[in-house]
């Protein structure tokens, strides 16, 4: 798989494009000197990352290093936490998503999210998947049914649930619920899917299923995944970012920093930074 050469690209001027994001200038995300604060506390600082289309980017590192914080800043989910704010730039196709005119609701339609613990709505399987499209204005029953089928197919769940679409989503197993959440996310046709440790609450078989799914859908989406499982990152991702924490001597609190961001193969076999090497070889967890 080849890289897109950034240096010669300019912002695309084409007025029409086949799918909604194809002609837009890569990279998908550009984080420049990003710091995230919760009130006065700086949770993570000086993050510089570029995320490319149709790749899987993994954030790895020990607990409390800001991986999830950075992930959630990509779709403005941190807004939900009182006192959270951002310094630096988060550029989505060149647009600062924290800009004054930007609506977080619209941002989240382009950038979807799957959470650590599966959280289907207490509604039927059909209604779970149809919720997003409904909110976006799709009203006709036939259209909704088509979208639901397509999304469930895309999440490799269709065959298992096609005969019980109107039963509660909570009646599924953990792994199935997570795939339902993935189907729900892709039903609104986002460009990016953010995944916050999506397999940590699942058993190994369900985990393998979800990893398989990630490879299958990679060609249609850009995926950013936070994971504690190094092997998972090594198996599934194209690029890896390693985070660690530095302890602030005054306040005894930890601020996350980005140590290294490179091709996955390189991070795991020949990392540039000693800290990365210590982590991936298991010398400290």
């Amino acid at each position, binding site marked *: 798989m080849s890289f897109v050469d950034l240096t010669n690209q300019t912002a695309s001027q084409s007025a029409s494009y086949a799918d909604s994001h194809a002609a837009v200038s890569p990279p998908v995300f550009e984080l420049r000197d990003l710091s995230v604060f919760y009130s006065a506390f700086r949770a993570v600082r000086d993050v510089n990352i570029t995320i490319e289309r149709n790749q899987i980017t993994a954030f790895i590192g020990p607990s409390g290093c800001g991986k999830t914080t950075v992930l959630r800043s990509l779709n403005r989910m941190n807004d939900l936490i009182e006192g959270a704010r951002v310094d630096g730039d988060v550029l989505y196709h060149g647009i600062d998503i924290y800009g004054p005119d930007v609506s977080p609701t*619209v941002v989240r339609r382009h950038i979807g999210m799957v959470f650590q613990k599966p*959280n289907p709505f207490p509604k039927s399987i059909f209604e779970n998947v149809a919720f997003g499209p409904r909110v976006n204005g799709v009203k006709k029953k036939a259209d909704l049914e088509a979208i639901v089928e397509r999304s469930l197919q895309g999440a490799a769940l269709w065959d298992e649930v096609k005969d019980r679409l109107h039963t509660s989503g909570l009646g599924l197993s953990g792994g199935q619920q997570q795939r339902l959440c993935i189907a729900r996310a892709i039903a*609104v046709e986002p460009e990016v899917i953010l995944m916050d440790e999506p397999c940590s609450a699942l058993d190994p078989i369900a985990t393998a299923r979800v990893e398989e799914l990630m490879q299958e859908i990679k060609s249609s989406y850009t995926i950013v995944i936070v994971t504690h499982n190094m092997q998972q990152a090594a198996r599934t991702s194209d690029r890896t970012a390693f985070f660690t924490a530095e302890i602030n001597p005054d306040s005894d609190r930890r601020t996350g920093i980005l140590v290294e961001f490179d091709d996955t193969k390189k991070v795991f076999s020949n990392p540039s930074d000693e800290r990365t090497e210590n982590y991936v070889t298991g010398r400290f967890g």
Partner: protein
Amino acid sequence: MTSTMTTGNSTIDLGATGGWRSIKSRLMIGLLGTAFVIVMIPLVLVLATVIMRGGKVMSWSFLTSDIAASERRTSGGIGPAIVGTLLTTGIATAIAAPLGVLGAIYLAEYAGTSLLGRVVRFMSSVMTGVPSIVMGLFVYLLFTLRFKQNAFGGALALACLMLPIIIRSTEEMLRLVPTTLREASYGLGTSKARTIISIVLPAALPGVVSGVLLAVARAAGETAPLLFTIGAAKGLNLQPFSGANTALSAQIFGNASSPVEAAQARGWGAALTLVALAFSFTIFARLVSARFSSQR
């Protein structure tokens, strides 16, 4: 098998914790238990009286007949009072429930830790303790003086009573909805209002409904707010805005102070009806909230 063991020079006795202390503990515990028995005595006595004396006059015609023109009549029923109670309580619910739920939504979803939110929450709690007669007097001065006595005035007073109760119980129910459900909705690009209406409220609905029903049961039994605001009609009045009205609670109050036997008997009949009404709402509310807990 004994509970004592002898080793060397000492005996270890695991059987008792030392006579007096253990006896005293059991005594005090027993005393605590009798507290429950003591409080049940009046409940049983009151219910027994209501059922026995009310049962004597109870009949279908009692429930549907008009109020006796004169106290001394042995005939007459409480039909108009039942209608009055349903009317005032119904209108009060129609006013207080939406406003109360919206207020709770403000507290649970919008207020956060803001000062205004804390003040509103605090004062809602305080407002639940305002005496019901103050509510009645307030509505009288504000509304009844200008618009005369009618069912709507009574409903307004009841609504003032119900509002803080509904706000508090609804807020609690909304807070029980897990944050992760809201996050899932926001993650799909849903606006806050839509998330609240389509996800949060439906998830909390059984608990919210249960809380409203309990408030209704409370309002149906109130007398003081209605005393000055609805007047004392004797006939059936379905008009909320014109003409005085009556209610079960008002009838009971009036009959209770009367020395006439027949009036007293009718009062007990009305009391039985009102208690049955309040109990049904309460039991219904518990059933709804039980379904809620089984769903989670």
